[in-house]
């Protein structure tokens, strides 16, 4: 019904470099950070798949030519980045931040110390609050994000960052399920979401979610 951003328009804003391998050795306790082994609302296979697909998408967005190898561990299906040398990197945020560094786009992690803190906070929000969030709490998350985004273009204010990318991937399946009315109720969130999904090179494999720009339910209630 609605044609948008053609595939060919997608551009890779980053020049590709050969990727140096970092060694990473965390303390033993951090190797298995998941004591929360129990089930959550999102099926495990789906979460595992989601995390891996989004890392693949992120690589493409960042302009990597060759895909890295990933696996998952634990009941939460935490992603692991395998490398040829040294120990693997564990955890979505750690890996994503690492990829951004490797792609020489450190500004995606924030330009100032304050901004970096804000980015880190939303990345943590993504993996602690959003992932595996039980169905009944989704409303309150949407509400929070909507309020937060009321006076912001991006999560870290006026700069596009990694927080926008990962939060976009994280809320995509929720946004896709919202009704037109619900999307309109969370107008700031929808506006941000629509903006990010049209940001060059970000959407990748994900289907476009239709966000109407005209208000349909202006009366507040029928």
């Amino acid at each position, binding site marked *: *019904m609605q044609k948008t951003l053609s595939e060919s328009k997608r551009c890779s804003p980053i020049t590709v470099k050969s990727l140096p391998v*970092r*060694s*990473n*050795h*965390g*303390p033993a*306790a*951090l190797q298995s950070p998941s004591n*929360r*082994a*129990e*089930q*959550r*609302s999102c099926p495990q296979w789906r979460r595992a798949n989601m995390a891996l697909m989004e890392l693949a998408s992120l690589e493409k967005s960042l302009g990597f030519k060759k895909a890295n190898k990933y696996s998952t561990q634990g009941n939460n299906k935490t992603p692991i980045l395998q490398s040829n040398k040294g120990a693997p990197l564990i955890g979505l945020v*750690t890996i994503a*931040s690492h990829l951004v*560094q490797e792609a020489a786009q450190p500004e995606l992690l924030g330009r100032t*110390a*304050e901004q*970096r*803190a*804000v980015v*880190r*906070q939303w990345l*943590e*929000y993504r993996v*602690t609050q959003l992932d*595996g*969030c*039980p*169905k*009944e*709490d989704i409303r*309150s998350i949407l*509400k*929070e*994000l909507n*309020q*937060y985004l*009321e006076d912001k273009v991006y999560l870290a*204010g006026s700069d596009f960052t990694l927080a926008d990318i990962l939060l976009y991937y994280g809320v995509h399946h929720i946004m896709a399920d919202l009704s*037109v009315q619900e999307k309109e109720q969370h107008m700031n969130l929808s506006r941000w979401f629509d903006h990010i999904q049209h940001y060059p090179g970000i959407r990748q494999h994900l289907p476009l979610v*239709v966000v109407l720009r005209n208000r*349909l*339910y202006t009366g*507040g*209630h*029928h």
Partner: protein
Amino acid sequence: MSEMKLFVSDGNPHCLKVLAVAELTGVKCDICHAKRLVPFLSHPVRPVLLLPCGQHLFKANPICLYFLEVSGRDVCDLTSQWLEWEAAELQEATVVDIVLWAALYPLLSNSSFLPDKLQCVARWFEQVNALPVCQTVAQRVQQQKSLESLKRFLQKQPLPPARCRNAPLCNRAEEEDAEREMTDEEIQAAGATWSRGLADRPTPAERRHPILPQEGKRNVLITSALPYVNNVPHLGNIIGCVLSADVFARYGRLRGWNALFVCGTDEYGTATENKAREEGLSPQEICDKYHAVHASIYKWFQIDFDHFGRTTTEKQTEIAQDIFWRLYDRGFLIPDTVDQLHCENCQRFLADRFVEGICPNCRYPEARGDQCDKCGRLINAVELKDPQCKVCKRTPVVRSSAHLFLDLPKLESQLEQWLEQSMSTGNWTSNARHITRSWLRDGLKPRCITRDLRWGTPVPHPDFSGKVFYVWFDAPIGYLSITASYTDEWEKWWKNPEKVELYNFMAKDNVPFHSVVFPCSLLGAQDNYTLVSNLIATEYLNYEDTKFSKSRGVGVFGDMAKDTDIPSDVWRFYLLYLRPEGQDSAFSWADMALKNNSELLNNLGNFINRAGMFASKFFEGRVPQMELQQEDKRLLAQVGFELRQYIQLLDRVRIRDALKCILNISRHGNQYIQVNEPWKKIKGGDEDRLRAGTVTGVSVNVACLLSAMLRPYMPAVSATIREQLCAPANCADAMFQGAGSFVCTLPAGHRIGTISPLFQKLEAEQIESLKRRFGGQQDEELRTDYKHAACSTSRSRSWWLTLVLLFQGDRVRALKAQKAEKTLITAEVAKLLQLKKQLAAAEGKNPEPSPQKGKKK
């Protein structure tokens, strides 16, 4: 940096790491204990750091790293250097260690929590704990009140989502695909158990009324939330309380517990008064009429109450007034005047549910006078903005009137003490714990127990004559009065907390009344009442993708289920299979047909039928000689494992999960028959014939076990199987003892009866017509909803069509994803194409040239 403010709270371990890192890095910030809410977050969080730029950081770890960064250290390399740091300089490694230390602090500061195996962790913890920074900040958070303050903080927090899904049984989901490997010991043990047989177990005694608590038995009192008499219960109500309670009561009786299951209709209140006015009857006549409706619905669903009573009885008045006076004499009731909404036009005070207005908290425009459906908060009716009388739509006025309040704050500490004990020893579903905790966290307030109405239990105090008790005070007392109508010795159940275990079944909206308010009434009355020890609350059941709604005619209501020609047992099965344990679930016709056809017909029914048919066709209706081989014993072990699992689950009221065990057994059984092919072996030599006999004999015995396990779920089917197999009366009793044991109950030579199929296929057309019948108005609903918005101009018409088209597209995709019946999909796609044509026409385009495009969608 001095403008930075760090907000912390007492007893919050997350503040430890932030304070510690601030201390460590030397970053200066004002530390405040004042309340500061992050404007966009819905829950208060600590710690919060207010940055110089005005942004809030509300996550402890980013705050820690921020401190580290502003103190001039490089965070990016931190992760890569952890190991080096830890090994070389303990001082630097503490950031990681301190964060872990703080998270583990509440648990590990009591060393007895740590199993011996984890000595390395213990050593590490001691080392970090001994650091001066840790010592200082730990004291600051605890405010010298030791670990107790941490405990109090943690108890009031809602459980994190992951922990809500009751831990130990979760691995189950993963195991389901992978066959559980049986060890040799398990297989041999299963063989030995089997050969014990029935021995000479006595036949279980018949139920004899009145059932009273007995010495030396497990005395279980089961209640299900009292349905309100005016509403015809829908499937969600049925699964939420009476059906769940019935399964548990039936199971308890099978286990040999001394169980009493009572329920009844809740009949007082304004809704009844109104209904009576509408139908020109007296309230009592209305109650009589609808009580009978309820009773017949539950009878059809085979709900086996020991007593199904009602609240409009003498006993109710007697017991409610007794509890009232006891509370009054002990000073737990306080008088106060209340502002109430009075409709001048209708000449009466408006009960909460007869006022609607805008929620003062979330601005939801259709909030009821007692609670907002959107944000769930309780509301005082006079706080509503723009209140409206629901009957005449006029604006009511505020009038004051004297009322009595139950002093919940005075009872709070007693309540907390009891709750701690009840929750730690009993079985409370996670939502029940969660809801109760959030009530306590918000603090209790006095609650009004009287109302200016007529149809209710009269308040006996002369100063409050002409008033009645508020339903929330009155209705739970119904459990007692209904038991009192059943037996004069009701106090043996209700004033016997040492010997009686009380199970309350309900949907989650009823939790606070059963876990906080009613226990407070009983605690305050100080009469040694039996309080709830097991509170079992379900989530909600939705209908297809929407809510059940009587007014919109959406969904299946109790009185209609029997008109569907689908047997009551199949209804029970599907509702229990869907039981919203842990999360909401949705009733769907297509899924019901699928489950009936795949699980009941092809799996369960097929196995039992084959087992019986082999015995009657090949062995003249007798159980043949059996000589068990390793493979047979392996099946016995698998079946025994499922049986024990079933018992463990049902003991913990995991009704839906236990049903899966039954289906697993018949799956194992089908596989066993399939592999051994008795229908071929019967034509072979002696050895093959013996083999066919063994397989048939074992299968018939598994079928007999299934009949016992099915009894709580599908009583009629279970009875039919028992009849077909001529199973001895004591077999269920024997197998359900203790942890459960699968024994040979039908020995060689046992004669079985006539075998016939147990289930029928649900055909696609049948389901499609039912769906239309019960959800039929929905499409119409959608249309009229948007018609409101749509006026006659073509522009708005195309808007409306676009929307409907969107919904239709979703529906088609959903059907395809569910792999629904082809005819169904074709019908919906046809609708979709029709809509597209209409849309094109509305937009003034010619729809003909692009029919291909439509099909792609």
